[in-house]
């Protein structure tokens, strides 16, 4: 036992020194200069410098992406465990864990957001802008046949219904896409809808907009590209992209959508600026939703959506720009994922609510 212990100790030291060399190499480059730029006595006193430095060291630590991918892939294949952020449903199907989990204080977060939605609608109405709200239901709720009885917290299950109750009281122009949803309507390895789901949601939005604002007059033609493989964001989150061919799941096969808009400019091509804005989350940036929306509305739509924008990131950024930026806008389509309802409020959301508390 003694001899192997000494060998193990030697290997331990070799690993530590190897790591030290790797970290030193990392810090000898731009990362090291960034550390020096961040240096401050205040940071040393309060520990914030050391905390940031710890992250720099971690970034320089040796790691093997291939090994990571192999172990994560094997864990998925053997245990059906796709990591902390992703849940594995039926074979080949992945879901965002956030869609299933209970969030502490989720009910109060949802209520606060409902109040905020009322404030935003009133804010836009004062500027003469119509607001149309599109909550995107959770993938796990819309595709139960693909989740293989994945556990979903009652908070997650009930949040959209709770929101609808608030929205009805607020008399919001809300689109409910849950009825007649074209199952599955979502990508297998991605949290977002697929082309059929996006087109269905766009058609639902268009029906409401036509009722509120009449028909569009712009000719929009859609074109579908060829099939190609697309590893979804959930595969990346679960670190399954490297070993998909061994352990699964297989990437989605998708087609890209593009829109051709026939702008009827005058002699000087002075077509009026579009008066419709899409302020959404990454759903509005995926599976040709914008293109399908323009086609369904027969009008050009300005894309102001933000990946990771959550409930109101994109819309608040738009409202932050001041009255001038919204001058030509008559209609805002506000898309957000239902799962964002129960998350803690962002700093921007809290700030907006404080500013408009007495409107």
């Amino acid at each position, binding site marked *: *036992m*003694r001899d*192997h*212990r*000494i060998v*193990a*100790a030697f*290997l*331990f*030291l070799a*690993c*530590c*020194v190897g*790591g*030290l060399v*790797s*970290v030193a190499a990392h810090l000898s480059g731009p990362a090291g200069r960034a550390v020096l730029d961040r240096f401050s006595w205040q940071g*040393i*006193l*309060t*520990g914030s410098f*050391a905390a940031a*430095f*710890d992250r720099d*060291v*971690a970034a*320089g*630590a040796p*790691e*093997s992406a291939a*090994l*990571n991918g192999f*172990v994560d892939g094997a*864990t998925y294949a053997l*245990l*059906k*465990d796709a990591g*902390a952020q992703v*849940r594995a449903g039926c074979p080949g199907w992945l879901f965002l*864990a956030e869609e*299933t*989990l*209970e969030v*502490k204080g989720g009910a109060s977060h949802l209520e606060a957001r409902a109040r905020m939605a009322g404030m935003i609608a009133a804010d836009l109405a004062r500027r003469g802008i119509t607001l149309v709200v599109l909550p995107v239901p959770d993938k796990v709720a819309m595709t139960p046949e693909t989740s293989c009885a*994945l*556990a*979903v*917290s*009652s*908070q*997650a*299950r009930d949040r959209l219904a709770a929101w609808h109750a608030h929205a009805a009281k607020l008399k919001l122009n809300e689109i409910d896409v849950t009825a007649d949803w074209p199952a599955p309507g979502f990508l297998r390895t991605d949290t977002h809808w697929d082309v059929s789901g996006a087109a269905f949601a766009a058609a639902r939005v268009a029906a409401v907009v036509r009722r509120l604002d009449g028909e569009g007059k712009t000719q929009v033609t859609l074109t579908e590209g060829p099939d190609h493989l697309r590893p979804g964001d959930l595969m990346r989150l679960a*670190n399954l992209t490297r070993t998909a061919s061994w352990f699964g799941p297989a990437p989605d096969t998708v087609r890209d959508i593009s829109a051709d808009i026939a702008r009827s400019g005058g002699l000087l091509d002075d077509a009026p600026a579009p008066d419709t804005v899409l302020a959404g989350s990454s759903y509005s940036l995926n599976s040709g939703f914008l293109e399908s929306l323009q086609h369904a509305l027969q009008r050009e739509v300005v894309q102001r959506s933000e990946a990771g924008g959550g409930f109101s990131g994109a819309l608040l950024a738009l409202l932050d720009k001041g009255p001038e930026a919204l001058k030509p806008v008559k209609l805002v389509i506000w898309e957000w994922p239902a799962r964002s309802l129960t998350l803690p409020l962002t700093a921007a959301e809290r700030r907006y609510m404080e500013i408009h508390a007495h409107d």
Partner: protein
Amino acid sequence: MVFASDSFIFLFLPVFLATYALAPAAWRNLVILAFSWTFYAWWRLDFLPLIVSIAVWSWLTGLWIAARPPERRRLPLIVAILWPLLALVWFKYANLFAETALSLGAPLTGWQAIVLPIGLSFFVFGAISYSVDVARGTVKAEPSFINYATYQSMFGHLVAGPVVRYEWVAERLKARAFDRDEFALGVERFMLGFAQKVLLADTLAPLVDAGFSLSNPSAADVGLSVLAYALQLYFDFAGYSSMAIGLGLMVGLKFHENFDNPYLSFSITEFWRRWHISLSTWLRDYLYIPLGGSRTGLARSCVNVMITMGLGGLWHGASWTFLVWGLWHGIGLVWVRLWRAVGLPVPPVLVGHVATLLFVLFGWLLFRAQTWAEFGVMLHGLSGANGWGLSDALGAALRPTHLLTIALGIALVYVPLAGRASPQLAAKGRWLTSWSALPLWLAAVWVLQGRTVVPFLYFQF
């Protein structure tokens, strides 16, 4: 800085060991001290003067105590204990008293919450034990400040124990030679502790957090959450203690074991002989015995137990839930004492074990709850008011890896039983543990790269 972090493994430790190895023997304690203070300042430099001042104070008053005849040491002892104790009370309990006073309507406007310096409880207990031991004459006062401060501040035990006593390290602080086998054993202990912490405790942390944040937990939710927490806490703290012992051995300092299979206990008394041993023996030697211990009759000894455990509970944190947790265990210890005093038969082994485990697990509910409201929610859930089976809320947080880790954790808790039954199996177990240390550590380091660092649970105490 956390042991289970890249900064420690790939920067602090190799640089420290290299510096320590290259330093002349006479300078080695100074190297340990310099690195230990750097280790502490890594968290926040502005609290370093506090622990340095306590070290200086205890060292100077220790010399003062030793200079007095034994019968005239009371005053310097009181003075010696005063500053560390005041620092502990202020930094650890001022918030609790202020919040309690505010809740009772006291006009404490503008109260600013005080930050608790990490490791202060362990540091203060080390200082107090040294002063008392010098006053009792069980140890000689340390003439060298460097040696004393090294004992007090050695980074291995600085922030989360064990509560090291000066007598454990007194001889080796003065002179020690490098021992290759001891160093290798130290590395092995460090690697095993690291693996316990990262692979077991940290894996369970998200499940525990989810379980204890449920608004309407079922009985099964509470059961699973507290079981996961019991394993998380044990592997977190036992892992840390193993790393501390290992780091001590690497530099030739021997710390005592802090855990001895506590979840194999057959009574609460036995549990406290096996759980956080350095704290329970500290409480026994410096609180329970001075209060009169068992020498004052059954009734008074039971009161002493309750006082000791209540204060021991409060030591863990500035919350009344910790006090009640301590009292809960006090009740358990008194119960065992009375059971024996009345002459009732010892319960069958299995009954004693299950009863002890259930008692301890219920205690962990109190221990983990941040507030009375949270404890109330868990208690309500335990009653079955929200149903008996596993809820979807916890089911959604429960991953196959959690179940595997819980199963592995339970297996590791009970494996030593086989060793007790057969010396051959025990030897095989030691061999297997020793051989698995390096691969487990490498696996833990690999896992660490994909995770944010999880601080040790006992950092908050």
